């Protein structure tokens, strides 16, 4: 492990702590949470009892330290509605969201990368124009809209796919397409730009001058050099994908975290909402760290920093 990665690791730890702190204080700033937690018409005594129970009568700094300590033990508190540990509730929903997100990522990368490379390599051909139109569709359709259209066409009209819920392998296909479409378009655009940029570099004709075929130059040189911007975008896009899951899970009645978030907001179950927010931030920060680790795998100039 070199200095670059240690520094990035430390930065990520600070970012996590910052998020935790921010979530804590935003909650306190938003006013007395007990008022939000209790049903309307609760008595003064009810409020006082809950305040003491939840420790809101103690000094803020003490509460904060308590809260951090709790999180360190991976304790996210209790759901207000279900009287279950938030951690357990989230854990029961997480696999569905991961499954959906992974399927959407397969759609996005599996289509986006090759389409991007083709758009760059086949520049100014009919194929490129066709692909540009395809990407534009993926990019401009709002997720809820494409979700509804997919359901109407494949589930209602053709009847070949289930309209909603989780029932066998089939059921992930439509939500994965709805969720992955925008990400696919982004990957395609970024890949196209990155590959075009690399195509204009001097090492391309030089590699061809060795006797390599153009295809070989693309696979063994250009793709690797184009990877850096694609990795950067991937980290952001996977985070966006998780945000998009909120909509897609609602449209397709998919029992993941996105649906849980919507239900919990409606039910004012704040510990769960907070748990999901913290988890989301943690994932986003980890993805960025992962991207930085990948850069140094791909690019020796980062990996060997200090050796030359």
């Amino acid at each position, binding site marked *: 492990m070199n200095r670059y990665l240690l520094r990035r690791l430390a930065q990520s730890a600070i970012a996590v702590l910052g998020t935790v702190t921010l979530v804590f204080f935003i909650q306190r700033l938003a006013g007395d949470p007990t008022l939000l937690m209790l049903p309307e018409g609760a008595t003064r005594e009810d409020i006082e009892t809950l305040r003491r129970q939840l420790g809101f009568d103690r000094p803020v700094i003490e509460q904060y330290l308590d809260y951090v300590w709790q999180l360190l033990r991976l304790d996210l508190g209790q759901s207000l509605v279900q009287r279950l540990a938030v951690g357990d509730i989230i854990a029961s929903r997480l696999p569905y969201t991961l499954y959906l997100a992974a399927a959407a990522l397969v759609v996005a990368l599996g289509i986006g990368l090759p389409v991007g490379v083709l758009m760059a390599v086949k520049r100014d051909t009919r194929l490129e124009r066709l692909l540009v139109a395809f990407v534009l569709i993926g990019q401009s359709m709002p997720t809820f809209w494409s979700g509804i259209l997919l359901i109407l066409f494949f589930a209602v009209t053709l009847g070949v796919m289930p309209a909603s819920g989780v029932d066998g392998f089939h059921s992930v296909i439509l939500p994965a397409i709805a969720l992955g479409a925008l990400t696919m378009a982004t990957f395609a655009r970024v890949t196209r730009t990155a590959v075009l940029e690399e*195509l*204009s*570099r*001097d*090492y391309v*004709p*030089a*590699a*061809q*001058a*060795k*006797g*390599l*075929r*153009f295809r*070989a130059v693309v696979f*063994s*040189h250009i793709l*690797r*050099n184009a990877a850096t911007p694609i990795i950067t975008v991937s980290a952001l896009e996977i985070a966006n994908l998780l945000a998009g899951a909120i909509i897609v899970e609602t449209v397709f009645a998919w029992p993941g975290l996105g649906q849980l978030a919507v239900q919990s907001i409606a039910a004012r179950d704040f510990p769960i909402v907070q748990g999901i927010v913290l988890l989301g931030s943690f994932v986003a920060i980890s993805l960025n760290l992962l991207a930085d680790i990948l850069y140094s795998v*791909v*690019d*020796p*100039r980062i990996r*060997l920093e200090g*050796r*030359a």
Partner: protein
Amino acid sequence: MNAPLLLVEDLSVAIGAARVVDGVSLSIAPGEALALVGESGCGKSLTARAIMRLLPPAARHAGGRVTLDGRELGALDADAMADMRGSALSMIFQEPVASLDPLMPVGRQIVEAVLAHRRTSRGEAAKLALAMLEEVGIPDPVRRMAQYPFELSGGMCQRVMIAIALICRPRLLIADEPTTALDVTIQAQILALIKRLRRETGTAILLITHDMGVVADMADRIGVMYGGRIVEQGEVFALFRRQCHPYTKLLLKSLPSLEGERRTRLSTISGTVPDLHSWPPGCRFNPRCPLAVDRCRTDAPPLAPAADAAHLAACWETARMAELDR
């Protein structure tokens, strides 16, 4: 002259509507070195890249034939042409560092060149690469093999490029200003290296340069380009002794002294090279030429024998060259 190794006939390259290489013809015998000189932008690099069939995307072939060892390169399909590159003819580019893939160890980039043409194992190819790195004078080649281009100096990268270009023993090496990006002492080393390898392998060379000292040192014959055309061609010393085209004459006159101060760049002659879209009709040099007559502004002079059969010039007024000495 024996049968030429490389025969270029009437080669043209266009960018948009402009013919930036316009009917270039030249030939190189096996083992011979031809220098191509001329001011910046006169089409030297595009001529080289047209021969390699590796034109930049903006440029396209606009006619002519290139024959190497009796095979017409334009008639080959893309894969067959790729097989010729690196094995029958190689090219080294002006920017050695940018010509290497920054993310791949240099050893593997040399190995790639071997594997493109020979069916051997990676291990065997690596042995060849190592031997070649020694041949081009890279100290501690085992360590260098594993290094990335950014860990090597410009001179080292150029040696690696030369190793890549010569490892499959091509019959023709095109070197496009192989030393321009390097500092003076390294320049001398690289030129000495190319000379030694040429002696040992008998490779013919098409050398593109700005530097008359390099021409005198390295080349047997010289082709002078102006405005995308070859305006004079002949044996180096014959041409240094006597010029048959006003452009060449002024080019050489603008040098301080050939023997004394050698490594001098071509300095500009009065007037500037016209923009590539605005070549005049007739002889492209006519706006800057002191000998120009009416005919020069309407008819383009062909490249024809001037002083003798081996010394060609494209000028209507070759007979009046003496006037330029006054």
